[in-house]
C-alpha cells in the first residue's frame, strides 16, 4: 500500500488528503509544524477580533482525522532526501514516503529592512503570528501605535484587526493609492476613503526605511524613507506580500525557482513528488494567471487535482475562469473574470463603471473594445453569483448581454435595494444604447 505523505496541513494539503481518501485506502500522513489540526488561515483575523475562537477556525472536528484514517504528524521538515524518499525532521526523526505532496504554503516577505527581526515585528500569516500579535498588541495600553508596511489584502486585514481593539494604526502603502496595481482607480480611491473613515492613518506613496529598537530589543519606532519622519510604535506588521515557504527544499534535488517548479500535472522534476498550493510555481503561467498563485481556492483546486493523479487518474490542473473575493473593512469585494487596473490593463480592455452616489458601492465591467466581449467584473458592496458569471464568461457573452441580464447575477440578501436599473441607465447614456433590463429568471440561472 502506497504511503502518501503531505507536507503542510493548509487548505491545499488537506484537500488533497480528503480527496485521496475518498478515492482510495492508501496510507496518508499529513505533516505540519504549525498546528496539529487543519484550521482556516483566512479566519485568524477573526480570532484576534473576538468574532471567533481558534477552535471555530477548524473546519473538521478533531475525531475526523482518525475516523478517516488520516495520520497527523507534528514536526518541522528540515530536508527532503528525494532519492531515498525520506523526510528528515528538526527533532532528527524521519519519515519515508512513496509519494510526496509538498504543500508548505507561503511566508511573509521581508525585504532586508534594518530592524526587521526585532521583537514586535511580525507578519500576519501563521498561527504563531497571531500569538505574537496577542502578546505585543493585546490592547491600546500595551500598544500605543502599530505601523503596517505593505498595502495589500493582509495589510488591510491587520489594520482592521488592530482597530477592533482601538489601537492607533499607521498604514504605509508604497503605491500612490491602495492596491491600485490590481484595482481600477475608482475602486482604489473608494477604499482609500473607507480606510480613513475607519480612523486609520493611511500614508500613500511611502516606503519603510528602517525599524528602530528600544533598549530591550523591541520595536520603538520606524522611519519613513521619503520624508525621514519617525513614527513611535510598539508593533510593526510586515504585510508586503508573501513568498513560497521552500527554504527546506533548496538543498534537495527538487527544482525550485521562486517556488517549487511544477508542470500542469503538478509534478516536480522528481518522480512521485508533487507540489501544490502557494508554494507551487507553474513553469508556464496558465492563461492570465500568475505562475505562483497564493489564493485560497487555487490551493484547494490543486489539492482536488493532484488527488486524482495520485489515485491513478492522471489529471491536468485546469483552473477555470479567474475569480476572487475579499473584504476591505466593511466593504465586500468580488471579482469574476479579469478586470485590470488602469496601470496594468492590456490595450484591448475597456471599462464601464458605475458608482453609487452615496454608499460605498461600485462596479467595473471590463470588455474588449473591439468585440464588446465581456471580460470580467469587479463588484464592491454588491454580491454576485459565481455560477452565472462563470457561464457568461465561458459563453463569451457581450457586455450588453451582461447588463441586460444583470439581475440574474445579483446575489445580495433578499430585500436589499437593487441597483441594476441605475447601472443600466448609466450604460445606456454612455453607450447611446437603449437596452432594457430583464427580470431575474430562475430558468436562466439554472440552465447549464
Amino acid at each position, binding site marked *: 500500500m502506497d504511503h502518501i505523505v503531505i507536507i503542510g496541513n493548509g*487548505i491545499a494539503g488537506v484537500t488533497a488528503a480528503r480527496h485521496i481518501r*475518498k478515492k482510495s485506502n492508501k496510507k496518508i500522513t499529513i505533516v505540519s509544524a504549525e498546528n496539529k489540526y487543519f484550521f*482556516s488561515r*483566512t*479566519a485568524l483575523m*477573526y480570532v484576534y*477580533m*473576538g*468574532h*471567533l*475562537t481558534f477552535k*471555530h*477556525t*477548524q*473546519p473538521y*472536528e478533531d475525531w475526523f482525522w482518525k475516523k478517516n484514517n488520516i495520520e497527523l504528524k507534528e514536526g518541522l521538515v528540515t530536508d527532503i532526501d528525494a532519492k531515498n524518499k525520506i523526510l528528515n525532521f528538526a527533532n532528527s526523526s524521519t519519515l519515508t514516503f512513496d509519494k510526496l505532496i509538498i504543500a508548505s504554503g507561503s511566508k511573509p516577505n521581508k525585504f532586508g529592512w534594518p530592524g526587521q527581526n526585532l521583537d514586535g515585528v511580525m507578519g500576519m500569516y501563521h498561527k504563531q503570528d497571531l500569538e505574537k500579535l496577542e502578546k505585543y498588541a493585546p490592547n491600546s495600553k500595551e500598544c500605543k501605535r502599530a505601523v503596517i508596511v505593505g498595502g495589500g489584502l493582509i495589510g488591510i486585514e491587520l489594520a482592521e484587526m488592530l482597530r*477592533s481593539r482601538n489601537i492607533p494604526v499607521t498604514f504605509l502603502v508604497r503605491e500612490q493609492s491602495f492596491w491600485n496595481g490590481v484595482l481600477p482607480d475608482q475602486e482604489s480611491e473608494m477604499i482609500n476613503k473607507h480606510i480613513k*473613515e*475607519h480612523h486609520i492613518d493611511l500614508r500613500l506613496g511611502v516606503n519603510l526605511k528602517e525599524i528602530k529598537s528600544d533598549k530591550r530589543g523591541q520595536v520603538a519606532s520606524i522611519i519613513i524613507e521619503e520624508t525621514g519622519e519617525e513614527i513611535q510604535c510598539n508593533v510593526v506588521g510586515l504585510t508586503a506580500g508573501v513568498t513560497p515557504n521552500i527554504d527546506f527544499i533548496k538543498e534537495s534535488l527538487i527544482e525550485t525557482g521562486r517556488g517549487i517548479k511544477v508542470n500542469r500535472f503538478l509534478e516536480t522534476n522528481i518522480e512521485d513528488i508533487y507540489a501544490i498550493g502557494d508554494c507551487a510555481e507553474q513553469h508556464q503561467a496558465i492563461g492570465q494567471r500568475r505562475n505562483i498563485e497564493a489564493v*485560497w*481556492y487555487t490551493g*484547494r*483546486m490543486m489539492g*482536488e*487535482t493532484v488527488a*486524482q493523479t495520485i489515485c491513478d*487518474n492522471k*489529471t*491536468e*490542473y*485546469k*483552473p*477555470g*475562469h479567474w*475569480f476572487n*473575493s*475579499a*473584504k476591505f*473593512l*466593511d466593504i*465586500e469585494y*468580488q471579482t469574476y473574470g479579469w478586470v485590470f487596473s488602469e496601470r496594468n490593463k492590456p490595450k484591448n480592455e475597456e471599462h464601464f463603471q458605475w458608482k453609487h452616489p452615496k454608499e460605498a458601492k461600485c462596479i467595473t465591467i471590463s470588455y474588449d473594445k473591439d468585440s464588446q466581449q465581456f471580460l470580467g467584473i469587479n463588484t464592491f458592496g454588491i*454580491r*454576485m*453569483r*459565481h*455560477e452565472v458569471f*462563470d457561464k457568461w464568461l465561458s459563453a463569451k457573452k457581450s457586455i450588453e448581454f451582461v447588463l441586460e441580464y444583470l439581475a440574474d447575477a445579483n*446575489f*445580495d*440578501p*433578499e*430585500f*436589499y*435595494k437593487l441597483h441594476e436599473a441605475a447601472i443600466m441607465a448609466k450604460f445606456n447614456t454612455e453607450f447611446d444604447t437603449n437596452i432594457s433590463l430583464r427580470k431575474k429568471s*430562475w430558468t436562466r*440561472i*439554472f440552465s447549464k
Partner: protein
Amino acid sequence: MKTIKNIGLILCFIGFVIFTGSIFTGKNKVSQETFDTWTKQKVKSEFFIEKAQKEIVDTELSAFELSHRITEIAKASNKYHKSRKKIAWNKIIPLKWNKTSKDFIYPLARASATGWPQQNEGLFFWITFGLAILGGTIAFATDYKLLGKAGIKNNGIFQHSATNRGHLGILAFLFFVGFYVVLYFFPNYLVNPITAVNPLSKSLGGNESSQWFLYGFMYCAVMSVFAIRMFIKYRHNNYQILRTAVVLFFQIAFAFIIPEILVAFNQPWFDFKNAFPLNYSFFFDWNINNLLASGNMGIFMLVWGILLTLVIVPVMVYFYGKRWYCSWVCGCGGLAETLGDPYRQLSSKSLLSWKVERWVIHGVLGFAILMTALTLYTYFAEIESWRKIAFGISAYDIQSSYGFLIGSIFSGVIGTGFYPILGNRVWCRFGCPLAAYMGFVQRFKSRFRITTNGGQCISCGNCSTYCEQGIDVRAYAQKGENIVRSSCVGCGICSAVCPRGVLKLENGPEQGRINSTDILLGNDIDLMQYVNKK
C-alpha cells in the same frame, strides 16, 4: 457617547434591581373578606379554615411568611384528616412543589398584597419597567455611534464575559432560570411585579393583571428594546430589519394586544398565530369546549387553528421555508432573535449535538402527537379526561406531565433560561414540536434553500459560529453545496456575517436545490465520472 451608554445601563440596572428587590419586600394583609372568598373556592377542610383564620387573617405578613404559614397549616390539616378513621379525601389539600404555590397560595397572595407597590401602582411601574426600558433603549441607541460605520460588528464577542459564558453570562443564566422557575411555579412571590402592570392590564382587557399578563408584557418590552439593538446592529441589512420588525409586530399584536382585546369583548383569549403542536393545549378538552361555547368567534378560532396547522403551515413552508414562521412570526423565535441574539454563537456545532437534537426534537413531536391522539380519543369517546384509561394513567395525567416537562421546564426554564450557556434557540432547536413538523416539510418538499456561491468560500467559520441552530453551515459551503436542513430557521445571519458573499437565503425551483458536488465551481478538471453523476 460612552457616558450616555453607561447612564442608560445604570438606569436599566436600577429598574432591574427594584424589580428584583420587590420580590423580597412584599407585604400582605389578608382581610376577612378576601379570606372567605379564597377559602370558599379552594378549601374544604374546616380544620384548615379555623387554624388559618387565627394565624393569617388581619395579620401583616411578608409574602414568604404568608406562603410558609399556609403550607404549614395545610400540612397540619392534612395530617389531621389523615389521622381520622374515615379519611375525607376531599378535605386533603394537594401539596406539590410545582402546583401548590401557583394554584393554591398565589390567588390569596395576589388578593391580599398591601405593600407600597399596591398603593402606588403607576409609580411602581415607572421605576421598574419604565427605568429598565428607558435605560435599555438609551444604551442600545448609543450603539449607532459607538459601533461605527454600518457593517458586521462582532468585535470582542468571544472576549466578553457576557457573551462567552463568563461571569456575566452565568449571572444572566441564573437570573433567567430563576425568573422562569418563579414565574411558572412560585408566582406568589411575583405579586409586586404583577402589580406593576395592573393599570395596563385593566385598561387593555379590563381584568386584574396575572402572572401571565406580566410575562406577556415583559416579553413584548424585552423584545422591543432588543429589537432596537438589532435595528442598529444590522442597519445595513434590510432582511434583518424587516424580519425583526415583523416578528416584533406579531408578538405585540397577536400574542399580547389582540388576545387581551378579545377578553375585553368576552371572547376566549386566543393567539391566532400560535399553531398546534407548539400550542399543545389546542386540542385539550377544556379548550375545545371553551371555543365551542364561545359562539361564532369560538368556532372560527377552532377552524382557524386546525387550518393553520394542516394547511397554512405546510403550504407556507413549501414556498418560503419554515423561516416564515420561526423567524418572522413565532413568539419563541422572536425572543430568541432579539434577547437571544447576543448568545447565538454559543450553540454547539458538533456532530454529537446534531444527533442528540434529532432524537430529542422528534421525541417531543412524538410525545405531542400521542398526547393529542389520546386526548381526542377520550374527547370523542366521551371519557372524562381524569379517568384512568390504561396503566393507571389518564389523559389528564399525560397532559399535565407534558405541560410540566415540555411546556414549562423545556420551553421556558431550559429553552430561554439557558440562552447564555447553550445559545438562543435551545427550545427551537431541541424541543419545539412545530419546528420538527415544519422541518420535515422544509427538508423534503420546499423551495427554500441557502444557496452557496460557487467556489468563493474560504472556510473561515463565521457562518457556522453564528448559526443559532448549530448547523455547521461551513461544512456545506466549503464543498459548494447548498444548505438544505430541516432545522434551519432562516434567520439570515450566516449570510450576513459571511465576509465573501457566499450565502444567500432564497426560494427557488425545487430541482437542483440539493446539489452535492465533488469538485467545486472554478476547477475545470474534466472528469466524465463527475459529469455522469450529475
